[in-house]
């Protein structure tokens, strides 16, 4: 199977762009993890050829942009990509509702990892349950992604 790497890079670029765009402050908790799920989508879509370098480099860029510790988001992106890549042959064949369960778990895992790192690096114990609300918007994101990117893929 042949996939145009230009299109993949383009969608990743758009994902990064959306990720760094300001989100209305009133509903910050609803901001979906654009970049992460576009990354995960391509890792699922391209069997056996998954590369972690885009996840790593985009994570580093996002770290620099958001002012978090260098390597924090890169670590989380690579880690989640790895988990998905390991199970990719199975997840790809699941029904959409089944995939959505996995997406929610991954989204929660992302938030928990971020919180875990902040907690050990900054000695903070404040956990706002609102951060987990974003998994809901991730659901919507994943549904649109599967439909939009599938049409791109098939072309």
């Amino acid at each position, binding site marked *: 199977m042949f996939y145009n790497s230009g299109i993949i890079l383009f969608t990743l670029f758009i994902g990064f762009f959306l990720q760094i765009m*300001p989100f209305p402050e009133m509903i910050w908790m609803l901001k979906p993890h654009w970049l992460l799920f576009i990354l995960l989508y391509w890792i699922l879509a391209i069997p056996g050829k998954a590369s972690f370098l885009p996840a790593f480099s985009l*994570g580093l860029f996002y770290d620099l942009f958001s002012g978090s510790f*260098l390597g924090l988001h890169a670590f989380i992106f690579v880690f989640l990509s790895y988990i998905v890549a390991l199970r990719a042959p199975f997840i790809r064949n699941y029904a959409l509702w089944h995939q959505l369960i996995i997406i929610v778990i991954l989204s929660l895992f992302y938030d928990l990892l971020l919180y875990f790192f902040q907690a050990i690096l900054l000695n903070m114990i404040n956990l706002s349950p609102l951060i987990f609300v974003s998994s809901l918007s991730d659901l919507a994101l994943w549904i649109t992604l599967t439909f939009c990117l599938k049409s791109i893929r098939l072309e």
Partner: protein
Amino acid sequence: MNRIKPNSIELSVRAVFLLFICAILICIDVYFAPFKMVRFYLDTLISPLHSVSHSPQKINDYLYTLSLEKSDLLQENQQLKEENLYIKAENKQLQNLENENQKLRNLLNAPISKDNSKKVAQVLQINTNPFAFQIVLDQGESEGIFNNQPIADENGLLGQVFQVALNTSRAILICDYQHAISVRNTRNEMTMIAQGNGCGNDLILDFLPTSADIEIGDELVSSGLDGIFPANYPVATVAAVRVDQNRTVPLIYATPKANIKQLRYVLLLWNEKFKSTLGDDVTAPLEETIEQPSSNNEEQNVL
């Protein structure tokens, strides 16, 4: 399954290698201070991204200016002119008072508070991450911004700069969990520490005995004891005092004066004296405040 197995081993090796690099990077960033220099260049490298993420705001502003009517603008201009007149007159009065105050302080041999110069900076990005309350400003080292520089708005102190790049800088707000500021109660001159508690919540005044004399509505100003913030700048108003039966300390909350919810422009405060000596060193400002009286004596001798 046979086909997947060798593949997954290769995957694991690559992933673990990258994860290892990430872990090393995090450790270096957290524990290795000289890495700040590298970070300076990296931040400078990605600073165009901040202007990209600021572009929707810019477009919005531009559309807004397009939609304005001429008559409205003229009216606003008139209003601002009048306001400016009042403020100028008040400023003259304040200057006279300041001169008088300095003369009196000279007589008392008390340290003279140096005038702070100010500069307006635009807020490029407000971090909506629930763990960190930071903003990115559109000015950096090339405009003379330095580490630990205080920022404020027209109502009160906002926070301080903690990461400087060439053209942008990152500031932490007083309501961040990681931030604390030394404040003074204007009613009874008591000093205390106001700690950030997330920007949705009020600041916490910690480490006070239950007998502390604090009332709701007390005005808190910066004490200047931390050597970073200028003294006597408004910070917060006490909003709630609760005595918890189970704890030995009272829970005191103070609402920040600065308008943290809507940040567009902020004031960068300068103190030339600090700028020349401070740099990155945290201990420097303390020595500076101790040496203050002697330097004033010298000034008097010169006078």
